[in-house]
């Protein structure tokens, strides 16, 4: 894409950008809310654990943080973290790559929709957590069952959103392309597909959140490593602080993954943002 013409102010830039001394103010206006939010969360937690509950079963953030430092230093935390992350990533990508074309086909062709709807409408009501037992029986307690479950939890939501996106395309977009001389294939690749991108991305974002739920549940029941396994071990050996380290890690990881997803949408697919 060519750069905007010289002398033309870029409309997408906020007026604050032209204020050279406002860098700190800009940072504050973007991230200030998060900082205050997180600080207050930990503050309330700290106060509650000291004055309200004051029990070893509810450790304050300072204790959890110290334990976390220890687990980082001896490598245990990252080992579990990467084990979970690897599974989520593999299953999420595979599920999306399978779901997008299926969703496109279902949205584009009534016959395909009728053929596949019994599968999607039946299977999506069986929660992935309920499939854990079957997955372990079929694929063992190794990576296979986890990746299967993440694919399972990803694929339906991506299919549904993609298909909904295709049917939400304004008919005039298709008509305009027809009267501009586009062929059916061209309309699919140059109109239907890009018009559906915001819906696909929304589906993937929801699927990402599902993946976190599913991976923990799966690892709780059958795994040799991962954040869910860490939780389970914590319960087994009454290491409450370790349980909390795992919980905080999950929260931060989910938050970071979602922000990264949003950030990449705005950076690489900003022009596909749902507003336009």
């Amino acid at each position, binding site marked *: 894409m060519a*750069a*905007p013409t010289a002398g033309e102010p870029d409309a*997408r830039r906020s007026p604050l950008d032209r204020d050279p001394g406002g860098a700190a103010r800009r940072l504050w206006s973007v991230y200030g809310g998060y900082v205050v939010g997180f600080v207050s969360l930990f503050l309330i937690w700290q106060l509650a654990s000291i004055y309200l509950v004051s029990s070893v079963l509810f450790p304050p953030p300072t204790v959890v943080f110290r334990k976390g430092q220890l687990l980082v230093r001896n490598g245990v935390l990252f080992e579990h973290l990467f084990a979970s992350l690897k599974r989520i990533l593999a299953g999420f990508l595979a599920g999306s790559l399978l779901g997008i074309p299926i969703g496109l086909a279902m949205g584009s062709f009534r016959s395909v929709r009728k053929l596949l709807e019994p599968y999607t409408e039946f299977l999506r009501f069986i929660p992935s957590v309920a499939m854990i037992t079957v997955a372990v029986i079929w694929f063992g307690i190794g990576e296979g069952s986890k990746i299967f479950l993440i694919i399972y939890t990803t694929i339906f939501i991506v299919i549904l959103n993609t298909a909904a996106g295709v049917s939400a395309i304004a008919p005039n977009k298709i008509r*305009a392309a027809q*009267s501009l001389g586009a062929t059916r294939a061209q309309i699919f690749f140059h109109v239907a597909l890009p018009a559906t991108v915001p819906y696909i991305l929304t589906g993937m974002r929801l699927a990402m959140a599902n993946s976190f739920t599913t991976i923990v549940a799966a690892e709780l029941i059958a795994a040799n490593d991962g954040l869910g396994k860490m939780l389970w071990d914590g319960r087994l050996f009454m290491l409450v602080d370790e349980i909390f380290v795992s919980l905080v890690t999950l929260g931060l990881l989910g938050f970071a993954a979602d922000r990264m997803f949003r950030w990449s949408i705005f950076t690489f697919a900003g022009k596909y943002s749902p507003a336009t």
Partner: protein
Amino acid sequence: MPLVSFHDVGKTYRSLQGLDYQAVEHFSIEIEAGELFCLLGPSGCGKTTVLKMLAGFEAPTAGHIVMDGRPVTGASRDRGVVFQGDDSLYGWLTAVENVEFGLRMRHVGKSERRERAMHYLRLVGLKGQEQKYPAELSGGMKQRIQIARVLANEPKMLLMDEPFAALDAQTRSLMQEELANIWHTTRTTVLFITHDIDEAVTLGKRIGVMRAGPRSQVKGIVEVALNGARSRTDDVFLQYYKRVHEMIRDEVAKAIARAD
């Protein structure tokens, strides 16, 4: 020989309850090459139905439409369409990329299509806005992109479906003026749909006044013998306005009565 002719065209829609609605019946008009033909009528009279059939988006249920000696059977790049709303623009493409769309689909080389797109963007007064996305432009500018997009594709005729109806009054009259200028320079055949008498008299070389629906037809055709810039305060302009107004007044009353 006219460029386009409608022969006894009828269009019946069937509702989900199985009820038939005859939007137009025995509809016949002829559009000459190079003219700007305004189709004027009260809301719900089937103007847009007529445009959709000529565009090839919908097939007539009776009669037939002929263009250049061939029956119209589907959408084609011979007939470029400017829609009323902005939902036909591609939000993920910049203004110039939107204008290039038709050329790109025909595999016209990158530099050539950019050049042609820029030419038409200048013609519609969008120079300097070419790298913006539709969402960053005003309603009037978006309609200009639509017009440039259709012109760049060099169709045999333009179909315009109330393209300025959603704009504010000032922008609308400016756009009418510019369309008149563009038409004077390009001499493209235009079918312009509107419910606004003022707009029809401002733009039209001939004005087809439609009856209120259902089973709508052309009530009469007014030839506007005004050349060059038309001023709304001219006596001749007002005479045409009154003539068209008298023709359409009863139809509007009927349309309102039927809606109640």
